[in-house]
Structure formats: structure tokens, C-alpha cells
């Protein structure tokens, strides 16, 4: 019974407390309408009009996913990216990788501003210097010198070395990074363009590595002797060598939000204005040519060689890459946060030191297939910090069992009109430190490929009230007794003193 009450409470009052969150939720759900994206349907594709036809498959794929695609030529003046400080599109794809100069409003600064305004970007690099190559370093990308495409002689094939099939399935991905390519991306992905090295920046993570045998070089230059050129480049003072599987051809970038104080100027749950950017080494990855191009593979058989031609994975990979950028997958959100004392219900403005605190949060993720936000209990490494200057407590927020969840869901639907979602609830109980101050509940869940969850809620922890200390301690019995006996003695003394001075008279007579 008591456990029940302690679980109902967050739901019953959270509904009132986190109005902001719920409003954000409404906004989100209304935005996540037709398309598979959680942040909006409108897509602006910037591409040379002549080349537009080369990407028909990709663009059609986007439309099939429910996106409203607008095409704009790089030099065209409209539609503008930003009008009156507001972005015109939810997503921008820049396929004009080799264009030299762009219209006025398409500049590195404006692109960065777009990101900070919450617009997602897909940026493709070309072999020539242009606006994007100067923008890339801001995202901690290390580009090779111009006109040095990624080449590889492996595997042996008829195509030119600069046209490389990359095996998606052989990508090694750490377990706490979202894998952009689901298992259904089969076959190899054709790539041709520049690869880039990644500086250490936790916001940036590789989506598609270059093959380990590949390297960036200009095989066509007349001076020949590529090997010597590479050797020179790799030496000290050289312009550096770009080679191997540490390079990436596709990298994802998640902008930083909620890094702030979580109150005052930057209050609120920050994930609304989080944006994503994807850097792709070459726009041809999205092209119809590569989407149609077969991959020739030899398979050793007991009876000699067997040559197999598979369709490439480009069509799917392109959509997956764009899908991640458009916040279809790996999108999380904190719906509400509640906290209260153990075995108590109701809103708490301040805790006393050593209180047992129950902290509960509800998290949901966006499901691109149903295009809805659904409660999400999949986070295994969610942590809660109780911070004053430094974290005093850091404990795991574990998902609450689904069964209880259902049980309470129907309870909560009775108690308050908050939606009966209990799965996706994470909760923990800990003891407030025995020092007073303004503490903050901090959830800061940052994983590469996922939306950053950042939520802070400050609450004062105060010393006990003057009557909050234990009284009538056994240790103090003698003192209590002493005080009381003194006053009793005083009373009796007074009584006798005033009541009877008869004898004293006698004395004074005697003297």
C-alpha cells in the first residue's frame, strides 16, 4: 500500500509541475506529423539544377518518407534559409559539393546559425576548395589537401581506384554509440570523394569509416611517383598523410545544448533546439549512379571462383544517413521529472539534510515507423547526479518494471489526467547529503548518435528546524532532573522562607 502511494505521487503532481515539459511535448507531437522526422517535414535541397536529376532516387525516397522537398539552386536568392531570425526549413541538404560560390545567404556563418536555430544539415564535401571546406574545420574535421580524393586499390576491381566499395557490416562501433546503419543495410556502399580525419571532439562521431587500405592521394598528377609524394607528406613538415581506417567518409555531429546552468538564462529541457549535421565526403554517395551500381564480389568455391554481382547499399544508406540527420532515430526526450520524500506525496520546495529522496523521470523516444513518441525504457546507463558545485551523489536511474508500470498507469489515470504511460519510467532513491545548500538534480545523458538529455532542477537542502532535532535524549536525563529539582527546591525554599519566620523572630529576640 505504502509503496503504491509513493509511486502514485510523482504522477499525481508532476502533471502540474512540469507544464513546460508537457507543452514542449505537445509542440513536438504536433510537429511530428506526416514525415518520419521528429522535428519537421520541410527539407531544402541545395543542388545545381543541372545535377538535380542525378539524385532522383534519393529525393524520391525522401518524399516517400513524407518529407516536403524544396529544391534551390546554390546561386538562387530564394527561398531564404533564415527569415526574420527564424529558419524556413526543418532540414537542409547541401548536395552542391563542387560549387565554387553560393548565394549571399548561404555562408558558413549562416549554416552554423541554422544549426543553433535547430535546423538539421546534411553537408557534402567536394574535391575543390569552397565554402564548405572552410566550414568543415569548425566541426573539428581535418580535410586533406584539395584535389586529393580517397583512393584504394583494394579489393581488386575494374573501377578506378577512387571509386570505392565500403563494407558497412565491417564497421566497428562501440556499444554506447548509436549505429546509424541498421542490419538491413546489406551489401557495400559505393563511395567516391574526400575522406577526412576527425579531431577529438565528443560531439563528432564517425558513421562510415574509410577502408583500412584506402588513402587520400592524387594518382593522376603528372609528376608520378605517388609513393614518394606520400612519403614526403608523412614526414615532419609535410602536409600530412590521410590514410587508413581512422579516416571517415561520413561523420555525424550533434550540437551541444543544455550544457548551461539549467536555470535562469538557459532554463528548460534543451532537446527542442538540438540539431544534427552530417558530413559526407562526396555527394555521389546519394547519386542514382551509385544507387544502381552493382558490386562485384568473388567468392572462393571448391570449383574455382564464383563471381557474384550484388546491388549496392547506397539507396538505403543514403536514406539512413539523411534519416539520422533529420532526427528520425536516436531521438530521446524527457517528458517529466518528479521528486519527493520517501513515503510522502506532494510537492516539496525544500528538503532537510538526510532526507530520503525519490527521484523519478519519464523518457520517451521517437519512433519513425509509427511517427509517434513512445515511452522508452531501453536506457541502461542513465545516471542521476545530485550536485552542489560538484556532484555529491551519482547514482544509476533504473527503469521501473513494466508490470508495476501498468498497475500504476491505471491508478494515475484515476488520480490525475496525466497520460497513462508508466513504461519509460526511471526512478531511484537516495539520501540527501548532510550539508545544506542549493543542490541540483542533474540528468545529463550524452551518447554519440543520440539526442542529448539534459535536465537540471535545483532544490534547497536545509538544516533541520530548531524543533527538528531529537529531544529528551537519554544522555541529558541528569540535566533535566537537575533543572527540575532546582526549581522545585526553589519553590519549597520560597514557601518555607515566606511562610515561617516565627523561629527567626525568636532568635532575633534572643539576640
Amino acid at each position, binding site marked *: 500500500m505504502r509503496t503504491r502511494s509513493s509511486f502514485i505521487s510523482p504522477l499525481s503532481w508532476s502533471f502540474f509541475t512540469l507544464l513546460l515539459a508537457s507543452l514542449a511535448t505537445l509542440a513536438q507531437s504536433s510537429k511530428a506529423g506526416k514525415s518520419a522526422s521528429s522535428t519537421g517535414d520541410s527539407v531544402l535541397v541545395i543542388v545545381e539544377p543541372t545535377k538535380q536529376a542525378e539524385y532522383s532516387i534519393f529525393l524520391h525516397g525522401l518524399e516517400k518518407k513524407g518529407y516536403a522537398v524544396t529544391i534551390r539552386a546554390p546561386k538562387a536568392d530564394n527561398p531564404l534559409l533564415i527569415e526574420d531570425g527564424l529558419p524556413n526549413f526543418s532540414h537542409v541538404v547541401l548536395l552542391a559539393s563542387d560549387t565554387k560560390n553560393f548565394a549571399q545567404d548561404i555562408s558558413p556563418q549562416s549554416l552554423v546559425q541554422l544549426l543553433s536555430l535547430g535546423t538539421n544539415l546534411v553537408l557534402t564535401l567536394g574535391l575543390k576548395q569552397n565554402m564548405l571546406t572552410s566550414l568543415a574545420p569548425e566541426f573539428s574535421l581535418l580535410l586533406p589537401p584539395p584535389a586529393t580524393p580517397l583512393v584504394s*586499390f*583494394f*579489393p*581488386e576491381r575494374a573501377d578506378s*581506384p577512387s571509386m570505392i566499395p565500403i563494407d558497412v557490416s565491417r564497421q566497428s562501433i562501440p556499444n554506447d554509440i548509436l549505429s546509424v546503419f541498421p542490419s538491413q543495410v546489406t551489401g557495400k556502399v559505393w563511395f567516391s570523394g574526400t575522406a577526412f580525419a576527425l579531431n577529438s571532439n*565528443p560531439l563528432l562521431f564517425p558513421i562510415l569509416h574509410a577502408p*583500412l*587500405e584506402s588513402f587520400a592521394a592524387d594518382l593522376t598528377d603528372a609528376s608520378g*611517383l605517388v*609513393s*614518394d609524394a*606520400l*612519403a614526403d*607528406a*608523412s614526414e*615532419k613538415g609535410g602536409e600530412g*598523410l590521410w*590514410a*587508413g581506417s581512422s579516416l571517415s567518409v561520413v561523420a555525424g555531429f550533434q550540437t551541444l545544448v543544455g550544457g548551461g546552468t539549467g536555470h535562469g538564462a538557459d532554463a528548460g529541457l534543451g532537446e527542442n533546439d538540438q540539431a544534427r549535421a552530417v558530413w559526407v565526403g562526396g555527394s555521389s554517395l546519394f547519386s542514382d549512379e551509385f544507387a544502381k551500381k552493382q558490386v562485384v564480389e568473388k567468392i572462393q568455391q571448391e570449383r*574455382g*571462383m*564464383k*563471381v*557474384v*554481382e*550484388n546491388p549496392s547499399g547506397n539507396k538505403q544508406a543514403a536514406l539512413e544517413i539523411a534519416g539520422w540527420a533529420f532526427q528520425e532515430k536516436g531521438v530521446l526526450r524527457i517528458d517529466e521529472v518528479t521528486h519527493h520524500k520517501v513515503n510522502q506525496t506532494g510537492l516539496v520546495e525544500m528538503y532537510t539534510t*538526510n532526507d530520503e529522496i525519490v527521484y523519478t523521470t519519464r523518457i520517451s523516444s521517437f519512433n519513425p515507423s509509427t511517427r509517434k513518441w513512445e515511452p522508452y525504457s531501453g536506457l541502461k*546507463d542513465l*545516471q542521476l547526479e545530485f550536485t552542489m558545485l560538484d*556532484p*555529491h*551523489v*551519482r*547514482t544509476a536511474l533504473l527503469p521501473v518494471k513494466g508490470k508495476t508500470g501498468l498497475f500504476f498507469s491505471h491508478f494515475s489515470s484515476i488520480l490525475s489526467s496525466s497520460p497513462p504511460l508508466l513504461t519509460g519510467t526511471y526512478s531511484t532513491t537516495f539520501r540527501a*547529503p*548532510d550539508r545544506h545548500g542549493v543542490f541540483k538534480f542533474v540528468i*545529463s545523458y*550524452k551518447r554519440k548518435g543520440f539526442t542529448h538529455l539534459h535536465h537540471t532542477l535545483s532544490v534547497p537542502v536545509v538544516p533541520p528546524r530548531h524543533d527538528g532535532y531529537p529531544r529528551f535524549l*537519554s*544522555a*541529558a*536525563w*541528569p540535566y*533535566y*532532573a*537537575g533543572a527540575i*529539582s532546582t*526549581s522545585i*527546591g526553589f*519553590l519549597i525554599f*520560597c*514557601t518555607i522562607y*515566606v*511562610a*515561617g*519566620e*516565627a*523561629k527567626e523572630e525568636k532568635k*532575633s*529576640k534572643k539576640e
Partner: protein
Amino acid sequence: MKAIIFLLLAAAAQAAKLSADSVKYSIISSKGEPNTKSLSPNEDLSSEVVTISQDQTLKLSFQVVDKATGKGVQPEQAFLRFYDEQSGEEGIQPVRVTSSGKAKFDLSMAKPPSSLPPSSTAPLKVTLLLGASSYSPQKLELFDLYVPASHPAPVHPDEPKFHLLPELVHTFRPDPQLPPRAISALFTVLVLVVPWTILCGLWFSVAPRVPRLFSPNILPFTASLFAFEYLLYQYWVDLKLGDVLTYGAVLGVVTVFTGRHALASIADRRLGSQK
């Protein structure tokens, strides 16, 4: 959909393979005696293990040849790849190849090339990558190289925040421990008994008779005194300050009057008696 073609003779039609032969390495330490060792690498894993220390130098030499004709070739790509399987760190070192296909590479740990990756206790797998247009490329596993361990690769200061962090617990101050109740009780009894017994003993001997204990002059005064002490006792138990002050004020006025009266009467008696 999937088109499968059997070419039995297709193998003959493909380009000639590159390969490296006379692959030798020797380890030069400060005090000479280079023991040169040759090995014949192939595509699958090699069991060869090489260890060099801080003051040693690894000399590696080979010749890139056309496997069919056996004469030297100068490929575009002649890379040594150092790879740490544990940390996944990788380093690529291009090697200069002469037109005759001869190649040399020195790895001195005194001043290692920038391509050498950070190394832990695990060995670095050294692979030779050969690639040239119009030849089919070749990948040769040379040996596992043990080099002195270095610092791990530098990470961004915020990197830990993007992974699971260690849990923290607050260490609480210990509560003050109380003495055993028995002792407290004992002393309580002492405080109550010892002084009172003595007091009573003494007072029985010296205390005057109390003839006027209940005389109307005295009694109100004593009563109000008792009331006062009781009020204070109640304050200790469960009264708020405000109540006590108000009650106390009222009681104080009463006590003043009763007291004046009582003391006046006593004074009269005394003075009267002394006359």
C-alpha cells in the same frame, strides 16, 4: 535479380599479382651485432614476433616484385600499417620504393615516426600494403611488433561525459553516540536523591516551623510562584515562546500584587514584633 556468372578461366584473365620478396629485418641496438632475419610473409597471420626496446632500431628491407615475372616494381602504394587490436589505434607509414622496387624502412624508438600509434602491452600488428595500378594489390602480414608502451591516446576533456561515469556516494558524518541509558539513569537518580536527602536532613534540623503556610496573606504568593514554575516547565515541554510571554506577563502582574501583599504583611509582622 542477382546475376551469377561462372567464368572458369576468368582467373587467367586477371592482372598480375604484386608481391614482396627478400623481406629482411634486423634489430640494431646501441652495441651493434645486427642479427638479420628474413621472413616470407603471406596473406594470413604470421607467427613472427619482434620486440624492440627504447634504444633499439628496427631495420626493415624488402623488394616489391611482380609475382609472375619476378622483376622489381615501383608501386604507388607501399604502406606499413601498425595496428593495435586492443585499442583499435592505427598508424600508416608510407615507404619509399626505388624504381627497382627496393625499399628500406628504419624504425628507431629513439625518435619514432609520427605514424607510430600509441601502444599498450598488446603488440602492434605490422602489415605491408602494396597497391599499384594495373597490378592486383597485395596485403602481407609481416609480424607482431612489441614496442615500449606509451601514454594512451589523448582524449577530449569532455569525452568521459559521453560514457558511463563511476558512481559516487556521499560519506555522512557519524551520529553522536549516547552513553548507555543505565549510566544516565544512575546519575539522574544521584542528582535527584543525594542533594535532596541532605537538604531534607538539614532542613529538619534548622528549618523554622511554618505556622502561616496557608495564611491568606502568603498563600496567593506561593501559589503564583508555583504557577510560574509550572508555566516554565510547560514551556520546556510544549509551549511556544509567544504563549509563554503572554501568560508570563499576566502571571507576572498577579505575582507582583500577591508578592507586595505577602511581603508587606511579613514586614509588618517583623517590624511589629521587633518593637
